[in-house]
C-alpha cells in the first residue's frame, strides 16, 4: 500500500518527507559540512572539486553550483540544510526564501512588510493565486516574461 501524502496538491510547496529525505541525503549532508569554517573555505576555493567529494547526483551538483534553491529542493534538499550554502555566501534567510519566488530582494521584502503572501488562491493546485505554477516567476521580471510569452 502506498503512503498517504495529502500534501502533494499544495502549490509551490515540497514537503520534506521520508522519500525526499532519502533522495537528498548526500546533498543535505554536503550542506551540513559547511557548518565548519575550514570546509566553507575549501568549498569556496573550488566548488566543483568539493562537490565531487560527495556521493551526490550530477543534477544535485549543478543545482548547487547554479544556487537554484528550487532545483535543490526538487532534488531532495531541505531548506534548513540548504541555508548553510546561503550562510557560506553571506545571504540571509529572507534572501534565500525570496530567491525561490523570482522576485527581487526588494520586491520580496516589500511583500512581507505588506503582510506577506495571501493564502487565497494558494491552497490547492489549480486555483489562481500567485504561487501557482502558471504564474512563475513572480515579480516584475516574471510579469514582463509572461507578457512577452502571451504576446
Amino acid at each position, binding site marked *: 500500500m502506498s503512503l498517504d501524502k495529502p500534501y502533494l496538491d499544495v502549490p509551490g*510547496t515540497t514537503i520534506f518527507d521520508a522519500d525526499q*529525505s532519502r533522495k537528498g541525503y548526500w546533498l543535505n549532508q554536503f550542506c551540513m559540512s559547511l557548518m565548519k569554517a575550514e570546509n566553507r573555505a575549501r568549498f569556496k576555493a573550488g566548488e566543483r572539486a568539493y562537490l565531487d567529494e560527495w556521493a551526490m547526483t550530477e543534477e544535485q551538483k549543478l543545482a548547487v553550483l547554479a544556487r537554484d534553491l528550487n532545483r535543490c529542493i526538487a532534488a531532495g534538499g*531541505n531548506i534548513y540544510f540548504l541555508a548553510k550554502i546561503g550562510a557560506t555566501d553571506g545571504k540571509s534567510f529572507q534572501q*534565500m526564501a525570496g530567491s525561490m519566488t523570482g522576485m527581487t530582494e526588494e520586491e*520580496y521584502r516589500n511583500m512581507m512588510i505588506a503582510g*506577506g*503572501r495571501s493564502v487565497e488562491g494558494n491552497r490547492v493546485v489549480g486555483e489562481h493565486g500567485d504561487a501557482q505554477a502558471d504564474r512563475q516567476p513572480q515579480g516584475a521580471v516574471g510579469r514582463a516574461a509572461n507578457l512577452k510569452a502571451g504576446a
Partner: protein
Amino acid sequence: MAKITASVYTSHVPAIGAALDLGKTHEPYWQPVFKGYEYSKQWMKDNTPDVIFLVFNDHATAFSLEMIPTFAIGCAAEYKPADEGWGPRPVPRVIGHPELAAHIAQSVIQSDFDLTIVNKMDVDHGLTVPLSLMCGQPQAWPCPVIPFAVNVVQYPVPSGLRCYNLGRAIAHAVKSFDAPLKVQIWGTGGMSHQLQGPRAGLINREFDNAFLDRLVTEPKALAATPHIDYVREAGSEGIELVMWFVARGAMADAEGGAAPTVKHRFYHVPASNTAVGHLILENN
C-alpha cells in the same frame, strides 16, 4: 514538590536574534517586534522560575540527517550556542538541570513516550532566540534550562495531540520531583510561515489569531488539527506550531484544574519571513 507555574509561547525567528546581536532593535522595522516583548521581559524579572523547560526544534544544527529523533530531552550540565554558519550567537552558555531532566526522562518514558536522551548538544536559534526575547541581553541566563527538541524538519512530525499528551506527562513528572522548584514550560516556533518554493512568504493572520484564541480556550480540540491544515493554511514551516501543544498540555486545566490566566498576548507581521506570535499563560 516541583510545580509548573506558567507557560510561554513564542516564535523563534533567527533574524530576531541577528537584530538583537547587531544592535538593530531600534530600527523602525524591528521596533514593533521588540515592543511586543517589553511586558514579557518585566514579567520574567518578576516571575523568574527555577528552571525553564524549553520546547524547540533543531534546524539541521545538532541533528543532521544521520539521526532524527522525534523527541529529544537534554540531560547535560550545559549547552553551547551553535555556529549555524554565521558564527555562534554572542549569548551566554545555557546551563542545564541534569537532575530534573533525568527525572522527567525516566518518568515520561515510563508513561510510554519514547524520548531520546541527549547528553551533548549545541543549541541553535530555536532555543536561544526565545531566551533573548524573554530575558534581553544578560551576562548569564536567569536560570537553568532543559532543552527539549521536537522533530519538525522531516515529515511526518508528531501530531498536535501527541504533543499535548506529552505535555501532560511532563507536568506529571515535574509534580513528582522532590524539590520545591518553580518550573516554566515554553513552546516555541511558528506562527504562519513558509521558507521554500514559489509559495515562500505565506502569512495567514486569520489562521494565526484563531490559533491563539483557541490555544487558550480549547487547546485539546485545537490539538486535533491535522498536519495538512497547517501546511495549506499556515505554510510548510507553520507546522512548527505543534510544539506549542507540549507547553499547553502541561498546564493545570489539562488535568481538570483551573483555567490559566492570559497575562500577555502579542502578534506581529513580519519578522523576516514569519508571523510572530506570543502568549504568556499563568497557572492558577
